[in-house]
């Protein structure tokens, strides 16, 4: 015997439904097209591309463009490939993400659990930092880095990205901690826990979702940044994005499109990976602050 349940789905005819799925499928295909072009052309010999037929599948499958983009392509003076710049990016992104996330968490903790006079104004000003366009700060930032002796170095880039990221990370953590029960902090105070003990032992262990949001956001932004990298990096600290530009924009010799495609995919791979690994926490974390559980 089956139990009758109320059908609450919106009723649509079969024709309408087919049409909807067809349109959705078309959109999806259209959206996937650039990725298809990149992947397909990165595994073709160059003459297949120059001979026309960018949309065709490769007749001869080759991974040579990938190897060349990674380790042999002419970028700047030396034919080093993208690999040293990849490590430059890693050396810049990891500390910048870690520092800005921890500082954002600390800021959020102070702004919600250790309220002081004008704290909302201070938070408003920090929020304002999210809306400052990159271009405005280029010259003052260059001057400051020069004065601090950090011009053209990875640590200088880390500093720039941390400063720029704090606004966002503070916003995330502040909103997350705003609905974190203050009674827990008070209980910990009575239990004798100090400022940092409460932070490490009580708040941080419950901050998983929002930490993931902060890390994904910061990682994507810093990894993909081109302007700061192009402006403040020295020859030996240029990040991946700048190197990719140099590879593609090189004005001498033959344009090796297949190598360019492979390089572009290599440059996009880490952010793609972060999304695949932690993506589902991203949405969960974004929602976490908004609805009281």
């Amino acid at each position, binding site marked *: 015997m089956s139990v009758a349940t109320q059908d609450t789905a919106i009723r649509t005819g079969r024709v309408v439904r087919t049409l909807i799925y067809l349109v959705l499928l078309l959109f999806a295909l259209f959206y996937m097209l650039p990725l298809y072009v990149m992947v397909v052309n990165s595994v073709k010999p160059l003459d297949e591309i120059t001979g026309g037929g960018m949309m065709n599948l490769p007749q001869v499958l080759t991974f040579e463009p990938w190897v060349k983009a990674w380790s042999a392509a002419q970028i700047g003076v030396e034919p080093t490939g993208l690999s040293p710049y990849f490590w430059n990016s890693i050396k810049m992104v990891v500390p910048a993400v870690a520092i800005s996330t921890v500082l954002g968490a600390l800021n959020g903790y102070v702004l919600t659990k250790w309220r002081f006079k004008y704290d909302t104004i201070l938070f408003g000003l920090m929020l304002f930092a999210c809306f400052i366009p990159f271009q405005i700060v280029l010259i003052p930032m260059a001057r400051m880095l020069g004065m601090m002796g950090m011009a053209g170095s990875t640590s200088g880039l880390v500093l720039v990205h941390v400063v720029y990221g704090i606004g966002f990370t503070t916003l995330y953590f502040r909103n997350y901690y705003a609905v974190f029960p203050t009674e*827990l902090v*008070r*209980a*910990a*105070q*009575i*239990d*004798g826990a100090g400022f940092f003990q409460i932070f490490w032992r009580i708040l941080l*262990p*419950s901050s998983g979702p929002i930490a993931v949001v902060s890390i994904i956001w910061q990682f994507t932004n810093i990894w993909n940044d081109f302007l700061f990298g192009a402006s403040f990096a020295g020859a030996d600290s240029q990040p991946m994005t700048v190197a990719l530009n140099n590879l593609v924009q090189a004005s001498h010799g033959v344009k090796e499109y297949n190598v360019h495609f492979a390089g572009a995919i290599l440059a996009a791979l880490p952010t793609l990976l972060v999304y695949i690994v932690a993506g589902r926490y991203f949405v969960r974390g974004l929602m976490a602050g908004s609805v009281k559980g």
Partner: protein
Amino acid sequence: MGFLDIDNTTKSYGAVEVLHKIDISVEEGEFLVLVGPSGCGKSTLLNMIAGLEEITSGEIRIKDATMNGVHASKRNIAMVFQSYALYPNMTVGKNITFGLEMHGVPKPERDKAMNDVAKLLQIEQLLDRKPGALSGGQRQRVAMGRALVRNPDVFLFDEPLSNLDAKLRVDMRTEIKKLHQKLGTTIVYVTHDQIEAMTLSTRIAVMNGGYVQQLGTPQEIYDTPANIFVATFMGSPAMNVLPAMVAMENGKPVAQVALHDGTMTSLPFSQNNMADWTGKDILLGIRPETITDEDAADRKSSNIAHMTNRIIVTEPAGSDTFVTMTMGGKDVIARMRSDAEVKAGADFSFAVNMEKAVAFDPETETRIAP
């Protein structure tokens, strides 16, 4: 000098004073309940005792040592919060011993203390679970365990039962009272529930608008409320307060009260000092349970008045039947035996135990008799 002294203590936020000159002295082993409506300042006062809010002026002392400016963790107090405030990332055992760990107690001692408390509260089987996996009553026990394990001088409870459902609340109330009788600890307990206040406390401080309206034993508060606020706040259903005029009959002061049809009835006072109010208006306070049918009138009372009044509504509640009538132009509720033969719309003969009646000054709303 008491065990816990709250001495002339005030609290201000900017220019706004929210607590005005609070003076309470608590003896060792006492169970003091701070009761009042929302926003009366009771939780603020508790937080000041805990050290979570600063004292604007005055002094709070525990065991004769001033607590002004002393950090919450160094006052040797423990607090049970309304939401229990269990650390969600720690097991029950960790929750209970966290305070000891922060105070640098070595692990073997911590474990022993934890096991003792767990045994006392019968939560031994829960020690490895996370708070998220516990029911409301279990969380409540763990929260109490966390407070007990530190063996503090004073326990502070901030509305600990208000998150539980009605039945569990009554059970836990008994549990807390048992625990207090067994351990004899000093407790300050905040609630807005007057029944909790009456049942648990050895003394009650009724608060309203940042003032302590009355401080006394539950019996004192119930029988001789200091003013109309206390009279109507404590007791359910609330005390009936109705306008009356004092007159002299046969050399005795009586309260003249209008019945449903405007005719006056005389209710003799037990207190002779009411003679001073002859010819003046007063407010007469009568508890619902002191208005009964003739058969159920208190035989020990020396002053039973009789009146016939019309019943407007009857509300049978199983154990009692509540009867509404009009006296002095106000709705008056009487609490009758469930088998009293009452019918809406009919006239009925009531007995009023005037020994228990209270009179208030209509100007100041303070009690003038008894």
